């Protein structure tokens, strides 16, 4: 049975995004994907915890798509985590609501891939920078997937953006139809 995917989308200024908008359009076209725009739904940051938890329960895989801001997610993702992933529900002795679901990060970065290396401008790899999310998924008994990453958005040409969108679509389809993969890095 195909997995239902919840796409948590977070971009504070979607109108001026090129890459993330292209990725979002691609994702919207994939059957079985529920697109959930956090900034559009909660412009005042007043996140409806009950509704978010219901959404999570209704889906098998959660993809969190956002640009990488300061080596992390835009502010609303953090707010979402703080409020929605409640103790006793998502984690803790009795917190098993998300057990077995899949979590994947889909991020875009302005810098080239080479900038995210030990010897690069940013000194750490994307995998390393996303450790807090990986640890979160782990604490909530979810299955962590390797992140989907688009690099060098500053200089991306239209063809490169199209290619990224195709890759993202393929990744989502695989997530929908395949079985979750436990990764050990």
């Amino acid at each position, binding site marked *: 049975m195909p997995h239902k995917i919840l796409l948590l989308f977070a971009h504070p*200024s979607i109108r001026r995004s090129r890459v993330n908008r292209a990725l979002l359009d691609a994702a919207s076209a994939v059957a079985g994907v529920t697109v959930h725009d956090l*900034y*559009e739904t909660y412009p005042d940051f007043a996140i409806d915890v009950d509704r978010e938890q219901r959404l999570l329960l209704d889906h098998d895989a959660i993809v969190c798509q956002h*640009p*990488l801001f300061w080596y992390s997610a835009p502010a609303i993702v953090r707010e979402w985590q703080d409020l929605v992933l409640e103790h006793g529900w998502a984690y803790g002795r009795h917190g098993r609501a998300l057990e077995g679901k899949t979590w994947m990060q889909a991020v875009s*970065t302005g810098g080239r891939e080479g900038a995210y290396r030990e010897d690069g401008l940013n000194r750490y790899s994307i995998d390393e920078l996303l450790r807090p999310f990986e640890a979160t998924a782990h604490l909530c008994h979810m299955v962590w997937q390797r992140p989907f990453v688009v690099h*060098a958005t500053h200089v991306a040409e239209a063809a490169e953006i199209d290619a990224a969108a195709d890759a993202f679509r393929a990744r989502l389809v695989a997530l929908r139809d395949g079985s979750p993969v436990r990764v050990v890095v």
Partner: protein
Amino acid sequence: MAADALLVQSATYLGAAVVSVPIAERLGLGSVLGYLVAGVMVGPAVLGLVSGAEDVMHVAEFGVVMMLFLVGLELQPSKLWAMRGAVFGLGGAQVVATAAAVALAAVAAGLGLAPAFAVGLILAMSSTAMVLQALAEKGLLKSPAGETSFAVLLFQDIAVIPILAVMPLLAPGGGGGDHGAGAHADGGTLVDGLPGWAAALLVLAAVGVIVLGGRLVMRPLFMAMARLRMREIFTATALLLVAGTALIMESVGLSPALGAFLAGVVLADSEFRHEIETDIAPFKGLLLGLFFIAVGAGIQIDLILARPLAVAAIVLAVVAIKAAVLYAIARSARLNRSDALLTAIALSQIGEFAFVLIGFASQNRILAGDLAALLTASVALSMLTTPILLILFERFASGAETADDRPADAIDERNRVIIAGFGRVGQIVGRLLIGRGVPVTVLEHDAEQLEALRRFGFKLYYGDARRHDLLEAAGAAEAALLVVATDDKETTTEIVETARRNFPGLKIVARAYDRPHAYEVEEAGADRVVRETFEGGIEMATESLRVLGVPAFEANRLGRIFRRHDIETMDVLRVVRKTGDRDAYGLAFRQRREMLSSVLTRDVQTVPGTDDSGWDAETLRRESRGEG
């Protein structure tokens, strides 16, 4: 013995009031009619319990003085100045036109020219006591009809002085007779026997004493009395002020009521205004009641019974003439039909000054004794017609505004939060706080609203939150917070002022109508002021941006930036406003508006994530290209 007689008299008058006023109220007739009927009942014609109604009348006239003092308290000098056109225009027109019309009618009825003119002037007067009391009871003082009536009454009060001066000239033999200038003051006055210029100087000096004394002496005095924290001494000071003012005016032959009014105006912008008001109001009410009882007791029933047709003809003719003239004047002042009719009816009776003027005129042998008696009976009787006409007006002509003088509910709970006003705004505040588990005590002054809300299960108390005793009863002394969510600007300001003065520890969150009102409420002592349409307007702007395609978060953020900018503008303008420089205020406002557009435009450029960087993308992109 004398003390006994006083007790008997007091008991009789109070008893009559206690019996008849509630009955009149229950029947929807208003208190004035109740007092008048009570007077007739205890007067010589029916039960004969009281005789010397004139003595009582003299004391009771002090009620009129107090009422005018209270009216003055409501009227800041600037407001009074703004009314000058209405006072002299409408008031002057009313007195001249009514006097002329009545005089013509009197001539037609066979009276000589001079007496007819005197009768015209006398009957042109309306009853300040009755009109203001009746309008206040119906909450109509601030309505267009109320303000017009007040302007006319004010002119009449002023006009009494020249009328007293002109009267002797109408006497047979022109200016003969004994014309003690202040014949209504029993003991003669200081100006008696003085040459004209000296008398004028003395009058000016008296007015000067009241104005300057009010400014320089009374304020510090009230301050000191307030610090004593002894209520009765504060009350005594207020009463002393009124009595003293009346004495000064009387001693120079001016109307004491006019003097009290002036004293009231002088204190109108003092911080003790509401305090003085609440202290004096009960005395005023009682004395006015006494006044109306005395008028009732003075009605010469036997004379009326002896010449019923003559009295009825005079009363009907005068009331009709006055109402017609007033209606025409009110319409010319652009009042609508209903307001003009109300004004005409309210002022259609003959006033208490007529008693004084009739006495003065017969003293000067202008009016024959039997005519004077007939007129006196007509004056008293005309006062009976007004409450009846007003009832008819309410039944048939007005928008059926019901009199609202139901007593405040007893409040049996003590909560940390009190909400005054439970309309559109108060309900939101209340529902949110109650939802959060914060118990609130709700005060509401609209009986219909109250009943409707009670059906929805809200617990509310009826009462006027402007009264500090009601706030006290609601637990304001121990409460942490008062939310003033009343709809009416002046009511809100008054509640804040009263609460701030009486309960210094109480935090006050108040609803303001607009920016100027927000400043006003701040100055009255509110800790937080919320402009009632501010957030709603911002939300409409935000929703409009969204409809235009702006994403929710961006629209919301623009709204919040606007909000902050506007609150800063309030701070900036507050300072400029204090200087009172209108041009500077306008300039500052325009500057702030220009600044706003630059603030909102800049934000669009600095919202993070232009393109997918999270930083200032345009610069970064150029940098990246340079590297590449």
